[in-house]
Structures are given as C-alpha cells and as structure tokens.
C-alpha cells in the first residue's frame, strides 16, 4: 500500500493517458510520417524532374509502352492467381481433414507449415536449382523428363507456382487456422452432411462462406508475395514483374522508380479490393 504522495494520477483514468503523452505522441507520429512519406514524395519527384528537362510526366508514359512491362505484369498476375488457387486447393482440404478426423496430424501440420519460414528464399532456390539440374540428368531417359522440362517453360513457369506455394504456405496456414478457429467447423459440417450435402457442397457452400476474411487475407498475402518476389524468379532465370523492374533500371532509371511507385499503389489497391470483395465476416 503506497502513500498518496506525489502521485498525480490517482483516480483520473482516461485523461491522464492522453494528457501527458499527447505531445510525445505527436512527435512520434510526426517522425514516423516523415520517415514513411518522404521517400514516397522524393521518388515521385525523382520520376518527374530532371535537371535537363524540368518537370515532365514522360516516365509514366514510357512505362506503359516499355518493352516487357505488359508481359511481365501479366506473367506475375497469372502466377499469383495460380498460386492462390493451388495453395487453397491443397491447404483447405488438408486443414479440414485434420480438424475433423485426424487430429493427431495437427502438430505435424503445424511444424510442416511453419518450416518454410526457416528456409530463406535464397537457400530454397539454391536447393531448387540444384535439384532441377540433377533432375534433368537423372530423369533424362525416363518419361518424366518432359514433365520436368514442361514445368520450366518460360511462357508460364509452373515451377515458380510450385515454389511460391511453398513460400506462402506458412502465411496461408496461419490465416486459415485463425479463420477455422472462429467458426465451429465440426458442427457445421456434420449438420450439412446430415442434411445430405455432398463434400463439394459442404466445402463450397458451408465452409468457404464462413472463412471469407481468412481467405481474403490469405489471398492478399499471396498476391503481395508473388508480385514482389524477386529471388527465386531471378535465380531460376525468369522475368516476372520484379525482375523486369531491375532489368529496366539499368537503362531507364526514372521508369524503374515510377514502376516502383506503381507497385506500391498496386499492393494498396489489392488490399482494398480483397478486403471489400470478401466483406466482413458474419458472426
């Protein structure tokens, strides 16, 4: 029991928390605002101003017609969508199965789905590249050789989709896990099955609608990762969006910064689109 000496905030609850820290909070927010917004502003200025030509929005016009812009963007988009589809297709049934009928697999799933976090992408691609090389030699006389090669087709490298699924697995798992935890999966599924629903019906009409926000955040994280992914694509020799930005930076500096600004906007839009499209979860 302390004496009531020298303590300014005895019974005043709400206001002291805002009274003293108010100036301090303003300083923190100001500094943070500066740190995060100045590079944005500076980059914008960098793209529109050159000492020789003054202010011009040429960089943005060049951007749209730059060689490889459309194709690399389309490739990244395609890869992103394919990754989302594949990762959800693999993870959702697995997590449902574990929850509903194989609870002993649960710790195994947890470990497996967190393991990719321990393997930095550069190390993963080092191993992946080696396996592809060895695979090409070892599998040469077998029919699987063509599959291995088809998977590496630069028009649409499925090998990248496979790699991205692994990279994004921990985040998707965590997202879906959180979502599944808040809905009473067992009851809902059992009720639906008792009413005669087939498994696809259960999945699509019962489980998915209840997981909307989890699916939304999983999709957002996947798309953001795929669009920004550079390491694996570069070291395997493909040119999706991020790799293209670096390639173009050698010849056109302003365009590459302009593209960087656009990609930030893109992620923002993605976040907005995904969160509004899926809406708020119904309680």
């Amino acid at each position: 029991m302390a004496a009531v000496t020298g303590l300014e905030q005895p019974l005043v609850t709400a206001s002291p928390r805002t009274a003293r820290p108010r100036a301090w909070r303003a300083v923190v927010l100001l500094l943070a605002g500066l740190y995060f917004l100045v590079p944005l502003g500076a980059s914008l200025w960098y793209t529109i101003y050159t000492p020789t030509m003054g202010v011009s929005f040429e960089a943005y016009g060049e951007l749209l017609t730059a060689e490889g812009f459309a194709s690399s963007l389309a490739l990244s988009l395609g890869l992103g969508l394919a990754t989302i589809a594949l990762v959800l297709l693999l993870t959702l049934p697995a997590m449902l199965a574990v929850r509903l009928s194989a609870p002993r697999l649960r710790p195994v799933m947890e470990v497996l789905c967190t393991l990719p976090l321990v393997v930095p992408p550069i190390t993963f691609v080092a191993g992946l590249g080696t396996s592809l090389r060895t695979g090409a030699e070892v599998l040469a006389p077998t029919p699987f050789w063509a599959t291995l090669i088809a998977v590496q087709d630069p028009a649409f490298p499925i090998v990248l989709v496979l790699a991205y699924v692994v990279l994004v697995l921990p985040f998707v798992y965590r997202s879906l896990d959180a979502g599944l935890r808040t809905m009473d999966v067992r009851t809902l599924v059992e009720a639906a099955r008792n009413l005669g629903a087939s498994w696809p019906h259960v999945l699509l009409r019962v489980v998915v609608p209840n997981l909307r926000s989890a699916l939304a955040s999983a999709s957002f994280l996947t798309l953001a990762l795929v669009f920004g992914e550079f390491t694996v694509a570069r070291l395997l020799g493909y040119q999706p969006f991020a790799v293209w930005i670096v390639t173009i930076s050698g010849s056109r500096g302003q365009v590459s910064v302009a593209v960087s600004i656009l990609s930030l906007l893109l992620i923002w839009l993605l976040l907005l689109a995904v969160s509004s499209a899926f809406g708020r979860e119904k309680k």
Partner: protein
Amino acid sequence: MFTPRARVAGVIAALTVITAACGAAPGTQQPSASEGGVNARTATSAADFGGLDKLVEAAKKEGNLHVIALPPDWANYGEIIKTFEAKYGIKIESEDPDAASADEINAVKTRKGQDRAPDVLDLGQSFAISGATEGLFAPYKVQTFDKIPEGQKEPTGLWTNDYGGYISIGCDAKKITTCPTSFADLLKPEYKGKVALNGNPTKSGSAFAGVYAASIASGGSFDDIQPGIDFFKKLKDAGNFNPVETTPATIEKGETQISIDWDYNNAAYAPQMTAKGIDWKVNVPSDGKYFQMYAQAVNKDAPHPAAARLWQEFLYSPEGQNLYLKGFARPVLLPVMESDGTVDKAAAEALPEVEGTPTFPTTEQVDAAKAKLAGGWDAAISG
C-alpha cells in the same frame, strides 16, 4: 468420398494430363541425321557441310537461333544480331541479356536436349575452359581458325576468343574538371565519392578485371592480386569509392561520374551520353593495363546445330569482326585484318588509345587471384 463415377473420371483426367507432358529426353533417343546425310551436330568445320553455301542452306532450313546473355549495347551485339538476321533470314531469339557466364553454363546443363537450350555461348575465359573440360561444347573450327593466334583458341575448336578490351576509366568530363588517367590519379581527394566499378568483383567480370588492373598498377602482378584489394581499400578509406554499379541510367543521373569498366563499354556509353548532354571520356590507365578476352563456344546439344555454326562463321568473318570493332571492342583477328586491309579503318581509329601489346595471365594465375579476391574483398571493403 466421391462417387465411383466421379473418382474414375478424376483418375482418367489426371492420367491424361500427366501423359501429355511426358516423354523422355530427345538426346537419349536415336539422333536423326539431317537431310543429305550431313549430321550438323558432328560437323567440325564448314568443309564437313560441303562448303559455306551448304552450311548456309542447312542453317536456313533450321530457321532459328537461340542466343543468351548478349546485351545489345555490349560490344555492339545489338547490331550484330540484326545484321545476321537480315543477312540470312534466320530468326534470333535473344534471351536473358543480363545473364552471367554461370547462368549460360547452367542453361546448357539444365536444358540439355530441349528446344529452349542456347545454341551458342559467349563466356568469360575461365568458364569457357571449365565448360570445355566438362564436355559441354562441340568442337568447331571456323574458316578463319588458323588465323587466330595460338593461346586464343582451344586447339580442337571447343572455344575461341572472339573480342576483348582493356580496363579503362570512364569519366563525365562536364562534371569532373580533370579526368583521371591512371589508377594513382583515382586516389586524389577531388574525386571523393565518385569512383565506381561495374558491380561487385566477385560477381562481375569487368569489376574483377578492374581489381586485377589496379593490382598491376600498385606494384602487384598476375600472381598477386592483393595490392589491388589494398588499392580499393585505400580508395574506400579516402572516401573516393562509390559502391553504385554503373549503368547508362546512373551515368545519366550523375550517380556514377567515374567508372572503371571495359573500354568497349565505356566507349559505347560516350555516343549514348552525348545525346543526353553528357561528355563521357575514356582513358586506358597508364599504370595498370589489363586486357582480357571473352570466348565463343557452340553447345554440343544445340537445338539448331547448323545455325549455331553459321553464327560462328559470321562472327569470325571480317564483317562480324568489324562489327565488334564498331562496338569499340578489339576483335581477336584485329592484327590479321590490319595487315591484310580488311579492317574498318574508321572504327579502328576510334578505339581508345593504348600503347604496347597485352600479356595474359595463365588460368592458374586467374583462378588463384579469384580465390584470393573472394576471400579478402569483403573484409577489406567493408572494414
């Protein structure tokens, strides 16, 4: 879980997809000889085809050529590719221009037997040698093979040097009052924060050569690259070292005002930059002259063997060699062309001035230097 019908349908669908993408590597199946009984894959010279015209015919029949790691503004490859396409009507697919030599070797290994494999390679010297040892190349002697000096080709034609250059110091003459002409100059305080390399010496061939040249300038030799590493440490301590990798964009923006790079790269920047109002000068340093050549090789499992060999013939013809010259690179047949008058005189005059003839380090010396650099660069430059 699924109805029996659905299950069967699913299995059939899966099998169809899998078998559609199946098939063993073509290389392990019987190779088919091309028309006329000439197997382009094993031809070791134009004579094997029955003359250059027959080679051209066979190449045109193939119609395509895959090249890799050929940036258009590197030794004038842009124009070389266009000229070849126009001359023979063979379409060239130039992939991954920013690839490094290691990427080229990887592409050959991973895509063995595939249609996507590169046909021809332009490699750093060490990579050509190691690739030949690994049996990745096909021996092919171009028609001018005998004119190529000894030591600049592999005796059976597995690789041949194509062009090379000296390490040079490029400089933005408008922003810098006196351009440096030697490595010793670079340490002067007026160049604070301005001296850039073309990347990291453990990754970029020209940056490695820059360190090697600096070593020669600082009292080292082909056997000892340590003075070069020490030089750059001194440069960094003096505050003159600029870690940005030089590209046309950085020169334009003024981020890299002095650049150590191959003379053909620096010289090629000059006309580009004049258009942007920058006066880019090139000097071969007087105290550290280092000359290095790249090497051409034909992929043993090239998907377009005749076109690959025609490409070689083109590059080593006076026309091809002069195109290299136009790109400010020193083609391997330059001395020969100068004596028999086929050289493009104007282009030869435009080369950055250099005195004397170059000496080359041996493979062992280069390998030892690389190992030493890989071990010591990080500690020196970041300390």
